[in-house]
């Protein structure tokens, strides 16, 4: 029995299942109790993450109860044992809870016959096109048919119904109507788990069919999960459809690098002729980690791998010769880089992006420190230092939060910024945790929030400080609803456990820095630090920004000047030149080295370009926003001439008389653990440890949990915030005021489906990309004569662009939301002019 289940109730009951004596918490469903005891009861509609519905009737069992004397209420004994009375009919094991003395039988002829009958019924309208079905080989229906089905069909094949087999439910999911067994797992997932019932049943009886109600179809960030849990091949994903057979593929553990949740992934790979005999990724599946992503992935994370293409990769070092970059050897390139770096000395900067591994950051920072340069982070969000001080306490798991706990979301559109965090907080709310939202606009998290504090953009810090009891510099009239703030502050402070998620909704670097300080102050004032399920989470917009902070990188308010004044810029895994202002500065930098996987805009103006490897081609670790350090493994081979970043850096370092580890990521990690105190306890072996998880999924019985993968490669380790060992004091401060000079204030916000390189390069995700747009208040738009969906002209930071106008009446007047990476560069709130066309 796993602890996970035991914790939920205290009372345990004794029962037997198939003659095995077991103990299970009262209230456990028979199917789950059996699963824990290692006995498989076949299910189709039941899924351990959702409420039972008893629809498919596959999980039939015979259930007996001890007989009681009608008058005395005492158990009737027979031969020293309680006399058992079985029900007249079989019962569905997914809808009946275990109770004391229960006897469950699943092996008798009666039960087997019952299950056979159900299968026969299911197959009577099933096409049995296993040979061409994506699910074939990992299909619960196929497996159970082999277990329970009869060899021949008594149903007249002429009378089979024929239905549409290629129905696009949306851009990412296809439905085969013939294969659907009407188990409603998909619709219940959308409704119960992600609160987005955009698909549902239509009609009735045998005409019952899955349809989508949204425009565009299946409009949800979560659609891929329905394909995993569909117990047949009715729902297939656009990337994998007819792409490979499950048994041809290998599984390789990884971690999603699309956002700071760091969901656990399994890449399925196959060597194939059409890719020139190369090993290629065919799909990404969730890998169970109940403390991170459970068994789910968001669609961006699931399909992101499709953006990596062979042909646009850098495969050879390049060196500038006049106007052009020409191919060169590693030796030549590295020698030149080392020479220029040495010349620059203290006047060098390294600038890194947010998706490198900890090992890469570590080596780059070592090299930079060796030269006396600056380790800079290309990021518009701050606070990583505070997260390392008052981040989540060791042993945190949002899944343990519920009644009596509080979760505060501030300046974050959580689903857009970190989909799985949104899901986990939603579930905590359903378990009774009080969710407080302090945002300047409506988001999908509002639906489960108990306290909604609607602030104006720019008041985020003030609100948090005021919740912490600070008075100075806090204009009460600023706070949209003072009573609400007080009530929320009380709930937060009195909560047993409390966590803050702060994001970057409407904030630039300085704004988020202030906000993070205010959050740290609130947590320390309310003593919500240094304990499990207490602390600060920065909802970073890149996968490993926390790792970058932990390894010593800092964003700079004066990045343009830093680059301009540098003699040597070592730009790794980011593309500063895609922003006009940085491009200008880089042109003044004496020598620019770009280390990347693609020829970015910065690479095009660089002096040397070094070809690195994509994270799917190598090993490494990421640190999530919850400060969980997790390993990823190589899934596919890297192009021949490329090298992992840490190795390239080590090779440069060697030429500068600095010895850095380069043989393997695991060895770099040993160095790192020695030098970075928070990581001292960790090594690759510890990170690969797994403990038993509930529900049990991904074993031979795919019917139970779907095709998600069991985690055998490591659950990672959460590192402790400094406050657990030292005393850290935080002070209140006077928040700065965001002044609005002009009619319209543009604020940056995050949208998951942006126009960043992942989305643009993925053919699968492309149809989901919106044209560049901004969002205006409806009344403002009316005044400007702008209708929803029309093109308007906007001018921001001296740049003019034509974009689509979207309208939102919940938005404050005078505010214009400008999504990041959506075609209009924006880093901080600022003035914007709008013209109707």
């Amino acid at each position, binding site marked *: 029995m796993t602890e996970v289940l035991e914790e939920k109730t205290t009372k345990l009951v004794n029962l037997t299942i198939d003659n095995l004596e077991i103990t299970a918490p009262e209230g456990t469903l028979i199917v789950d109790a059996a699963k824990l005891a290692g006995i498989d009861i076949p299910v189709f509609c039941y899924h351990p993450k959702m409420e*039972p519905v008893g629809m498919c009737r596959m999980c039939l069992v015979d259930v007996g109860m001890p007989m009681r004397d009608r008058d005395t209420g005492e158990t009737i004994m027979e031969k020293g044992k309680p006399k058992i009375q079985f029900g007249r009919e*079989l019962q569905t094991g997914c809808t009946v809870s275990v109770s004391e003395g229960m006897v469950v039988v699943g092996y008798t002829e009666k039960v087997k016959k019952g299950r056979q009958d159900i299968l026969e019924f299911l197959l009577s309208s099933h096409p049995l096109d296993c040979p061409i079905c994506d699910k074939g080989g990992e299909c619960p229906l196929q497996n159970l048919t082999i277990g329970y089905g009869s060899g021949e069909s008594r149903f007249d094949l002429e009378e089979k119904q024929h239905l549409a087999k290629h129905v696009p439910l949306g851009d990412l999911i296809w439905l085969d109507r013939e294969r659907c067994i009407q188990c409603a797992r998909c619709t219940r997932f959308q409704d119960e788990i992600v609160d987005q019932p955009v698909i549902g049943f239509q009609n009735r009886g045998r005409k019952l069919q899955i349809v989508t109600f949204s425009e565009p179809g299946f409009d949800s960030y979560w659609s891929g999960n329905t394909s995993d849990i569909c117990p047949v091949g009715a729902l297939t994903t656009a990337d994998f459809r007819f792409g490979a057979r499950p048994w041809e593929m290998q599984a390789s553990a990884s971690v999603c690098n699309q956002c700071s949740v760091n969901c656990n992934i399994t890449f399925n790979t196959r060597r194939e002729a059409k890719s020139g005999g190369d090993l290629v990724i065919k799909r990404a599946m969730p890998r169970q980690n109940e403390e991170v992503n459970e068994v789910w992935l968001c669609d961006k994370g699931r399909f992101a791998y499709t953006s990596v293409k062979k042909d646009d990769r850098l495969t050879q070092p390049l060196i500038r010769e006049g106007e052009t970059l020409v191919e060169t050897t590693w030796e030549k390139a590295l020698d030149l880089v080392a020479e220029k770096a040495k010349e620059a000395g203290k006047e060098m900067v390294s600038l890194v992006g947010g998706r490198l591994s900890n090992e890469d950051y570590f080596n780059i920072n070592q090299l930079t420190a060796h030269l006396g340069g600056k380790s800079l982070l290309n990021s518009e969000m701050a606070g990583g230092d505070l997260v390392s001080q008052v981040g989540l306490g060791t042993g945190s798991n949002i899944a343990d939060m519920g009644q009596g706990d509080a979760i505060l979301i501030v300046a974050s559109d959580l689903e857009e910024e970190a989909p799985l965090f949104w899901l986990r907080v939603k579930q905590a709310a359903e378990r009774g945790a009080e969710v407080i939202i302090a945002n300047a606009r409506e988001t999908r998290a509002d639906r489960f929030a108990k306290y909604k504090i609607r602030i104006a953009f720019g008041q985020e810090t003030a609100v948090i400080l005021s919740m912490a009891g600070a008075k100075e510099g806090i204009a009460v009239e600023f706070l949209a609803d003072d009573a609400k703030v007080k009530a929320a502050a009380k709930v937060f402070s009195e909560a047993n456990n409390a966590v803050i998620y702060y994001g970057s909704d409407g904030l630039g670097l300085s704004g988020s820095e202030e906000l993070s300080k205010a959050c740290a102050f609130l947590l320390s004032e309310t003593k919500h630090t240094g304990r499990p399920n207490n602390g600060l989470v920065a909802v970073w917009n890149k996968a490993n920004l926390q790792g970058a902070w932990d390894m010593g990188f800092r964003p700079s308010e004066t990045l343009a000047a830093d680059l301009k004044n540098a003699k040597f810029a070592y730009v790794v895994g980011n593309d500063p030149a895609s922003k006009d202002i940085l491009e200008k500065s880089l042109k003044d930098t004496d020598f620019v080295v770009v280390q990347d996987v693609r020829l970015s805009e910065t690479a095009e103006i660089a002096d040397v370009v070094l070809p690195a490897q994509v994270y799917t081609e190598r090993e490494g670790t990421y640190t999530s926003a919850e400060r969980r350090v997790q390993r990823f493994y190589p899934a596919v081979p890297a192009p021949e001439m490329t090298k992992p970043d840490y190795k390239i850096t080590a090779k440069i370092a060697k030429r500068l008389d600095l010895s850095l580890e380069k043989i393997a990521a695991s060895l770099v990690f040993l160095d790192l653990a020695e030098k970075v105190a928070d990581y001292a306890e960790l090594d690759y072996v510890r990170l690969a440890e797994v403990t038993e998880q509930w529900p049990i999924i991904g074993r031979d019985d795919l019917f139970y949990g779907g095709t998600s993968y069991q985690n055998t490669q490591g659950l990672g380790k959460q590192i402790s915030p400094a406050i657990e060992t030292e005393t850290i004091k935080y002070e209140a401060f006077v928040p700065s005021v965001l002044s609005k000079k002009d009619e319209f204030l543009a604020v940056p916000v995050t949208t998951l489906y942006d126009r960043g390189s992942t989305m643009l390069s993925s053919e699968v995700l492309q149809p989901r990309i919106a044209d560049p747009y901004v969002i205006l208040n409806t009344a403002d738009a009316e005044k400007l004569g702008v209708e929803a969906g029309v093109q308007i002209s906007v001018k921001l930071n001296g740049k003019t662009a034509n974009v689509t106008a979207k309208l939102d009446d919940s938005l404050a007047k005078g505010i214009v939301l400008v999504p990041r990476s959506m075609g209009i560069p924006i880093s901080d709130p600022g003035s914007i002019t709008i013209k109707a066309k």
Partner: protein
Amino acid sequence: MSKVDKHILLRHHEIPDIANIKTYQADGGFETFRKVVSTKMDPVELKNIVHDSGLRGRGGAGFPTGLKWKFVDDNNWPHYLVVNADESEPGTFKDREIMEKNPWQFFEGIMVSAYAISANDIYIYLRGEFWELAHVLDEQIELMKKEGLLGKNLFGTEYELNIFTHLGAGAYICGEETALLESLEGKMGQPRVRPPFPPAVGLYAKPTVVNNVETLANVSLIVEKGANWYRKFGTEKSAGTKVFSLSGRVKNPGNYELPLGTPFRELIYEHGGGIIDDRPIKGIMAAGASSSIIVADDKALDTPMDYESVPDVGAQLGSASVIILDDTVDMSWLINKTTHFFKHESCGKCTPCREGAFWMTSLTERIRSKKGTMEDVILLEDVAKNIKGKTLCALGEFSTEAVLSAIERFPDDFDAQVNK
């Protein structure tokens, strides 16, 4: 005081103008409701009266009404009363007559019942085809509001009561109480897993009593006249009168209110005037399309129509929609009709009913079109048996009753159809 002659429910036979509220009130109407509310009668006492009266649900299952009310969870509020006026069983047409012809007694019955279970809101769920009736009920509800019989602070007390009508959209399954609740909540009409039962978790997950129209139409008189008065009618275990909807091959089809325990013979031959053209009777379906077909021999005709006796002849009383089959009716034809009905009405939520109803229909089609063999008949019987006992709600079970009984009890009708 009202007079009760032959009828407790179809009292318009005695008082033709009873649908006029003045007439109803002149006969003592709404006095029981007024008394119950204004004297702040203890709901427990009311539940006890109804329990002691032996009143059982008239919607089909015959579950003791008072007992159901006692299951209402008093630790969870609010409570709801839902009146099942879906009346969709083929051959049932009694609820409609009660609501149309004796509406005020129906209303008073549901209002007293609502008080008894401490509900402030009543939903009347009507089948979609009853839209005209729903319109009339709405007007009557408005009138009652004006008369001070509905609304806040009734008779100067704290008690508030509201009634709402709701139309279904043409699905037999929405008569099943949990599918009804789903539909009422605006969702697809599909049954829920039971337990939990509605008195624990019902409408909007709140304690809810779902009762049939006819069941509740008795309540005001039972409360007025007492449990023992009601027990004078019917049998010991099946107390009271029942409205039997008689149809099929009889001379005088219609609704007949008779004490429970009246033999089939009396209903068919005395009240129904016997079989059309005085042909021999062949079979009886006592509970509409959901029935097993009773072989109409002397034993069957002398069987009392009550909840305990009908099973002795291999059937259920159900909603007492008695369909008479004479010797012109071929049972293979009949089950072709019933399987079509259930195929059309299966909600599709559970596998055996969804797939089985389809399969049975294609087999009865084959048999009826004389393309079938004896093997098809055997297969049909097997398919029906495989559905039985495995479905989520009783509809699936119902779909097998006529099929299994027809094949077992009227083999000749099948022999004649199949090319051996």
